[in-house]
Structures are given as C-alpha cells and as structure tokens.
C-alpha cells in the first residue's frame, strides 16, 4: 500500500499531465471526417515513435567501447523507433498528397 501511495506522490506531476493530456487528446481529434481516419491513424502512429527519445537516452549513456547486449538492443530500439517515425510520417504524407493533387486539379474542371 505504501508503495502505491509513494508512487502516486512521486509521480504526481506526470500523472496530472497524463490525465489532462488524455482529455486534450480526445478533444483534439473528435469530429474527424471519416475520409481522414486512415491518415490520422497513420500520423498518430508516427508520433508513437516518440519512444525513439528513450532509445537515444539509453544508448547515449551506454558505454560504447565494449559491445554489450544493452548496446546492441539499444541500437536496435533506435533503429525500430526511427522506422516508426520516418516511415510513419512519410506514409501519412503520401496519403495526404493524394488530397492535394485532387484539390489542385479541381479549379480546372
């Protein structure tokens, strides 16, 4: 029990932030037209690659003069995180490009 109370106390600020961001997240994306569901999911997916920051911190403070399990898996984490971030934003961009193409053509019709 004490651990739980200590946990809530020591994490009180992040917990406040977390709870409020849940509301913000819900508020920000409600009323999305269904045409944007796929790009929005893809864009949100790219943002979830923010785990890469964790990978950078992890490898950043690892001794790289010796090859350790931590180093190898840490680098793998960065690699996978980058795939998520770069691939995610690139794919979202590609999906949205199709809307742009359509809008540019419309005035000519």
């Amino acid at each position, binding site marked *: 029990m004490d651990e739980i109370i200590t946990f809530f106390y020591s994490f009180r600020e992040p917990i406040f932030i977390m709870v409020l961001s849940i509301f913000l997240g819900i508020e*920000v994306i409600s009323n999305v037209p269904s*045409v944007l569901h796929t790009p929005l999911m893809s864009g949100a997916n790219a943002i979830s690659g923010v785990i890469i920051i964790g990978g950078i911190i992890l490898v950043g403070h690892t001794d790289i003069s010796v090859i350790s399990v931590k180093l190898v898996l840490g680098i793998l984490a960065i690699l996978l995180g980058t795939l998520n971030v770069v691939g995610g934003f690139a794919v979202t961009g590609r999906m949205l490009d199709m809307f742009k193409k359509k809008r540019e053509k419309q005035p000519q019709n």
Partner: protein
Amino acid sequence: MDKILQTFNGFDFTVGSAILEFSYLLAAIFFVVGLKLLSHPETARRGNFWAAAGMMLAMITTLFLHQDGDGNRIGLMNVMVIVATIAFGGALGLVISKRIKMTAMPELVSFFNATGGAASALVGLLEFGNPKNESLLVTLLGLIIGSIAFSGSMIAYGKLSGKIGNLKAGFMKYVNILILAGLVVMTVYVLIQPFPHEYAILVYILFAAALAYGILFVMPIGGADMPVVISLLNSLTGIAAAMAGFIYHNLAMILGGIFVGAAGSILTLLMCKAMNRSLLSVVLGGFGGGSSGVVGEEGGVIKEITLSDASVLLAYSQKVVMVPGYGLAVAQAQHLTHEMEKVLEGKGVSVKYGIHPVAGRMPGHMNVLLAEADVPYEKLVEMDEINKEIGSTDVVIVIGANDVVNPAAHDTPGSPIYGMPIINAAQAKNVIVMKRGMGKGYAGIENPLFFKDNTRMLFGNAKETLQKLVGEINTL
C-alpha cells in the same frame, strides 16, 4: 550550456537542461497542433509537417543536451553512433514507404506500429536491468504493452497481406484471459519483491507471455474487426511509449504517447460504434465465421447478368450508386471506377459513391483509394446520407464489397454481424454485384443480398470486368 543554475538532490540543473525541457514543451505543442490540423482536410498536410517537426526537435535536443542522473552529457562518440543508426533507419523507412503500393497501406501502418511497439518493449527490457531505475511498475507496463503491440501488429500485418490465415478455436478466449491474468499476477509478484532487479528470469517470461498474448489476441480476429484492432494496437503503442517516458521523467515521451493513446482509443471506439460492436467483444476475440450464424435465404437462386445487359441497364439509368469494398482495392480498380463514373456522367447519369465507414481494411480506406484516382470529394457520400437516397436509386453497383451490404445485419438475429449498420443496397431498384466468385466475405458469412430478386451477379476480377463494362457503355 553547462552553467549550473541550481542544484537539488545532488543533481546540477544547467542552462542546457532548461533548454531541453523547453524544447520538449515545444515538441508537445507541435504534436497537439499537428494532430489538430491532421483532423481537417484542408490543413492535414501542414499537420503532418508540424508533428514531424516536433519529433525532429525533440530528437536533436535530446541528442545534444540530455544528461544522465550523474549529470553526464551524451558523449560525442555515442552521438555519432546514434546519428548513424537514425540515418540508416530513416533511409530504410523512406524507401519502404515510397515503394509500397497504395493498396498495401493498411499493412504498412500496422508494420510501422509493430516497430514502435518493439522499440518500447526493448527499452522496457533494458531499463529493467538498470539498477538505478526505480520506476519498475511503468518499466514493466511499457515492456508488456509494447510487446503486445509488437506481436499483435505483426500478426495484423501478416493477416492483412494474406500471409497468415485465420485461426479460430472456441477455447482461445479462455487461453487469452488466462495469459492476461498470468501477466498481471507475475507483474505484481515481481514488483512486491524487496529486490525486484534480481528477478530478470521472470521478466523474460513476462516478455514472452506478452508476445504470445499479442499473437493469440489478434489471431482469431478475422472479420470486419481488423480496422478496430489496428487502431487499438496503435493506441497501445502510444501508451507503451508514454510508460517508457515515465522511466526517464521525459515529458515529450509522456505527452506524445498519451496523445496517441487517447486519439487511438477514440478512433477505436468510433469504429466499434460504426459496426455496433462492443470493444470488449473485440478484445476477447473470435468474430466472424466462428459462429455459423442463421442464414436466411441460403440456397436461393443466383442470377447472373451479361456485360451488355449490365451496360444498357447502367447507361439508361438516372441515378447510380457505387459501393466499393476491399475487392476494389485488391483489384486496383479505383481508376477504372472513376472512368466508368465519367463515362456514365457523360451519358447524363448521376453517379455517387456510397462509402461505408469500415469498408476495406481500415477506416477511410476507400476514401484514400478513390482520392488517388481523383474522384471528387463531394461524390463520396457517407453511409447514413446515401441510405436516404438508395430507395430512389436505379442501380447500385457493389464492387468487391460484401459484409457492408449484407442485409443479414438487419434481419438475421443469429448472424455475427447482426446489428452492424450497412448500406441498404437491397432497397435500390436494381443491384449489380461484381465479385470474383461465390466466396464469402471477410466475415465469412453468407450474403442474402446475392439471392434477392432485384440482384444480378457479374462475376470476374473487378478490374477486367470494369474495363469491359466501360468499353460496352462507350459503344452505346
């Protein structure tokens, strides 16, 4: 940068750390603004740009300004290793995302989601072994959630690309609950130990069990539930990243992860609502095919239509509605669909598209495909709107869709899709169904629409059939 502003708890707070925290605030603002802009058609592209900019900013400042618990900055050698890794991963990500075909988009999103989940799982696994890490609860949560998101997304990827079939068994529901309970018990057991770091073996078992759960959880889901699952897994990846953020007290990670978690959850719920399914029944698995369902008019008479009859019927109609489904995506027939629409309009026929929110394998899948073929936005009519017009429509052409026009959802209480809102194609004066064969839909159930009096079947690959149909209409 290294000027010490304040020292608390033996930790030197420098100008660099202040800038780092401030950059995280900016990154979080970019994420929110990005998501907000992404939810409107006119601003979506800018939204994607801002979200990417936020990520870039957080990555760069972390690389150069982050300090560990002892106040050491990231070493120059490490920076080089990290930058090289990012450059390689980035190039790989760009190549994959540019080369992939538009129809494979849902798989790709699922795949990228898997990589994010795997990264979270790895960070959790490594941080558990770090004796200085005191946030073991969030570490384990990040590990478990990340692993589930990883293996689940890989299975979703495999299933969407047709590499993995469905596996359905009644007992799997109980196995899933058992594993889930086991995960909770083991996590609590590790955490209440006085020296939890010594229980590395248990954590590996936890890791393996979470991976197994992800696989078993997605495996039996075969029906129209797939979009819901991808959205749910996407939201899990966000939560896993946020948990890892707690380990480092890193606000960019916490905020970014939570936004995605919340956004993904809302999308998931929206989709569940569109299909009249509860999230719980999706999570417990086993939709489609498993229960045989009471089928209404099975064994009725199927009536085919010839190409020339179909072309005449279409060309002399006043109002035609096309209902696309996954078959359209598979056949890559979106351009031909647009061509047929133009040819028919040239003959004075009013043509619209009826878009079911979960047609295809992802929400908005049909919108993306048809947008690629330059179909004007205003021609894509959402389900509720098109249903109001169906009664006065001369011909509804169903192109590669099945479950989303299945009247069993309305009138067969035993059917697995009973209660799901559908496009009421059956109410039109005539229905033409383009299909490759008499196979069942993704949900694996019979479609009484095909046996109705006003329905005619046009068998064949959607692309070839449309091509011939356009040719026939042109000769009229």
